């Protein structure tokens, strides 16, 4: 049963910002509803106001201009999964999205919702982290753009202010050829929450790792970049042996917990295995 709340549906972006100014502190934003409604039914959140953003057509788009891919925050996961722009330029994102939930839920769930819900298991986060996406946050006071690795502050927590809205995800297209991969381990082979998810990005020049980026989900209070491990790789020769030898350090970058899905110990060990596999897959793509 849904608890009682006041339902507000702004017809324009400006109205949405006004409502946020007025009620932001006591409101929750409804995008696809696939997280919020469940949490409300389970009594986890009891907002006094629910602001339904579904009419804000201006936040539903995927475009490519000046070397940047821009995704409106209300773009559904299914739209991302099937977008040729995403598939051709940053397939690591569509690879992750197509493994999320079920087709029906992807029809409703949005990329903005997935990020703002800020689950450590949000599967869109690791690809966006390795792509070094930037997030545009808007309020009546203005706009700011922040790198995604500064966005998450804890489970269910972000830097968003009460009157602020995530409006756009900006992904810079890399000029040099990068290999990417996304891997996810769950308790079954589909429709599953991640026990561990890993996205990788590698740039190789003269058989040497010029850039290595690793991001993981479900192994820390937020989705995380494994920066210490990344640093170890830069400058090393781009071989499977090097990957196998150095991927073990990823445990230094993660801090998983035990829950009904898996133990912390298993998550640690799987972080290594998935990092290794995702790096090799990314490597295979550039060679």
């Amino acid at each position, binding site marked *: 049963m849904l608890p009682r709340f006041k339902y507000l549906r702004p017809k324009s972006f400006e109205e949405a910002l006004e409502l946020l100014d007025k009620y932001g502190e006591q409101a929750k934003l409804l995008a696809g509803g696939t997280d919020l409604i469940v949490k409300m039914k389970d009594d986890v959140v009891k907002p006094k106001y629910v602001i339904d953003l579904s009419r804000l057509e201006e936040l539903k788009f995927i475009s490519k201009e000046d070397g940047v891919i821009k995704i409106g925050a209300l773009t559904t996961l299914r739209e991302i999964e099937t977008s040729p722009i995403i598939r051709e330029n940053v397939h690591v994102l569509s690879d992750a999205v197509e493994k999320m939930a079920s087709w029906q839920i992807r029809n409703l769930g949005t990329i903005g919702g997935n990020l703002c819900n800020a689950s450590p298991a949000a599967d869109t986060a690791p690809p966006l982290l390795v792509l070094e996406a930037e997030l545009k946050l808007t309020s009546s006071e203005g706009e700011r753009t922040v790198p995604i690795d500064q966005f998450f502050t804890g489970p269910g927590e972000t830097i968003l202010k009460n009157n602020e809205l995530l409006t756009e995800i900006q992904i810079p297209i890399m000029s040099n050829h990068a290999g990417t991969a996304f891997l996810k381990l769950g*308790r079954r*082979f589909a*429709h599953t929450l991640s*026990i561990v998810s890993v996205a990788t990005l590698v740039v190789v020049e003269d058989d040497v790792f010029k850039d290595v980026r690793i991001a993981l989900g479900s192994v820390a209070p937020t989705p995380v970049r494994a920066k210490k491990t990344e640093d170890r790789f830069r400058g090393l020769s781009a071989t499977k042996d090097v990957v196998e030898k150095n991927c073990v350090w990823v445990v230094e970058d993660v801090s998983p917990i035990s829950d*009904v*899905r898996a133990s912390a110990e298993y998550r640690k060990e799987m972080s290594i295995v998935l990092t290794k596999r995702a790096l090799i897959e990314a490597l295979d793509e550039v060679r």
Partner: protein
Amino acid sequence: MSEEFLRLFEKWKKAKGFLVVGRGVRRVDALEKVLGEARYVEDYFFDGMLYVRLVKSTIPHGRIKKIDVSGALRLPGVVGVFTAKDIPGINQVGYALPDQPLLAEGKVRFHGEVVALVAAEGPDVAEEAARLVKVEYEPLPAVFDPLEAMNSKVLVHEEKGSNIAETTKVRKGDVEKGFEQADVIVENTYRTGHQDHVYLETEGAVAVPEPGRITVIGSIQYPHLCQTITSRVLGLDMAQVRIVQASVGGAFGGKDDMGPLVTAKAALVAYKTGRPAMLVYTREDSFTSHCKRDPSIIEYKSGATSDGKLTAIQVKIILDSGAYANRGPFVLWRATMHASGPYEVPNAKVDGFLVYTNKVFEGSFRGFGNPQIQFAAESQMDELAEKLGLDPVEIRLRNILKPGSLTITSQKLDHSVGIGEAVKKLAEVSDFKRKWAEYRKDGGVKRRGIGIACGWHGISTSRGVPDWSNAYINIYKDGSVVCGTGICEIGQGTHTAHAQIVSEVLGIPIEHIKIVGGTTDAPDTGATHASRGSSIGGIGIFVAAAKLRERVEKVAAKLLGCTPEEVEIRDGKAYCRGVPDKYIEWRDLVKKCYETGVEMSATGYFFLPKGTFDQERGQGFAYPAYSYVANVAEVEVDMETGQVKVLRVWPALAAGKILNPTLVEGQLEGAIAQGLGYALMEELVFKDGVILNANLTDYVIPTVEDVPEVMKPVYVEDLYQYGPFGAKGVGEMALIPTPAAIINAIYNATGVRIRELPATPEKLYFALKKARG
């Protein structure tokens, strides 16, 4: 009396060929289900209908001090709150033992136990009101672990003086001597966990008061049991309670147990308010408050000679029954009597214990105690084979039951024992021996493995527990036919099999036959459980149809100028054998019967002959016959993550006549998927008696990406003398050996053996890591 029936059985067994039996006839309910016309409980609506919600215990064990309903009653739209004291009849719904109230009385014994019912004008008001009912408890110490419960001072049922609800035993030969004769002995402890049915449709019923009686439409498996319990709770005659099945969205045994509990609850509200009342469990209610598959702890010792012959088994089975016994005594009995697997074992000592704990109660679930024990028994067989240097097929064939064998209860199997042939054929079609020898040498990160496991399952009720079949058939004046049976259509297609039986015996097309099932308006046909719906349930239909056939044949013979034995009826026309151009239309024949004083209605009561069982010695007649099954599973194990992909499963059945191969394939595929979930992922996680994953996010069941390709089945049609056309039972069979087949395949791939289900990736990963040292 049974001679008449035997004559009919024998007569039809000699049939040279069949018109519709044995064919993949399309389901009779296919169209209504495809078009969305089939009505499930929630699809019903009646004017003035109330919505019922549950008030559930928030603690695992405690005394109820006070129930304050005033807050709930003040909420506009709330019509009533009902507790144990509102029950006009008897607040007792225990199945095997009288230990279970419909609504908690005095005490609660598990977290999620139903304490009160709230009825309101709408579902949301009912839900809100349910939260406003304040139950004051005096918490009691609780016991959750069955081993601890066996000797605990904390008693789930004080009046019993112990948490051991039931014990069982088998004593055959001398196990001490048996183990002395053994060249190898294998001894292990196995554990299996809870399994939830996760039917698509949760539990539910809608009750409608009518003049002089109450009708309850429910998601059920046995209308007459619902009638018995509902009338007892209401203090009414059975005749005043009419039960009808709705379309059922999955049952798997769970609704055999839950059916009466929801029909009684909905009926209680309807009875007290005089208004229609609908109760549908939420998914969370279903997880917290409906019975599950009993978790088990099984200590198993087996001995065999160097040539692979079993000499003795000694087995201790502990089943965790949760807060109530429910079907547990029967589940335990079945597990105990099947402890050997389908093998000859000269010496056997088996002890079973059913133990109360302060957790959700357990109950019927496809396989009924057998998946647990066959997992242990079939793991043991592979371990013996390993020690003896035999392959898994060979050791099974050296011990397999055959006609004339004695079971561990010393019951002689005089006929219908096709398991040996099934195993031989299965090994051939799956290329088992070659793959098994090859895969065990495999290295690498992803390793293939293949495993086999067998199972057997006594059909009908156990021991001398009465079992019967019945049905009525009316042939109307236009020749169309209605057949009434208590057997429920729960998705398995049993009413299609029933229509095939009528069509075959009367020789008329299926389109003119209507099966009216799952209702107390039909004769009590027993429950739709124990794989008996089409087989034992079909006997009554077969007998009624065969009686009518003989009556019609006599009239036809006169008209055609031949003897009744020469009359052939097919496609709705009666012929004299060998004279294809002269016939009478079925419709005209029926008209003639009506005009000449022939009764066109019949019932088909049949009481199954049974033997006796000596409970003291644990020896004697256990079941009238057994269905047999064997599965081969081929897996791929990811050595770095512990993930298991089940690639293919080959099933084999020795279940008598296969009435409809399409329906049987449906049962095999579903049972394998459910067995795979049980083996690899399904698991309830408890903390202090509270289920932490009472939702479909964290209780995971297989998806289409997880289920294997199910290969063409091997059928050995080992006809059963009393089954319709020799059919035994199918529904539960392929689940039973699936866990052991998968676990044996994992061993073949990795050399690591998992003895606790489920074998989650995490569990297997750490077992592999430990084995690597």
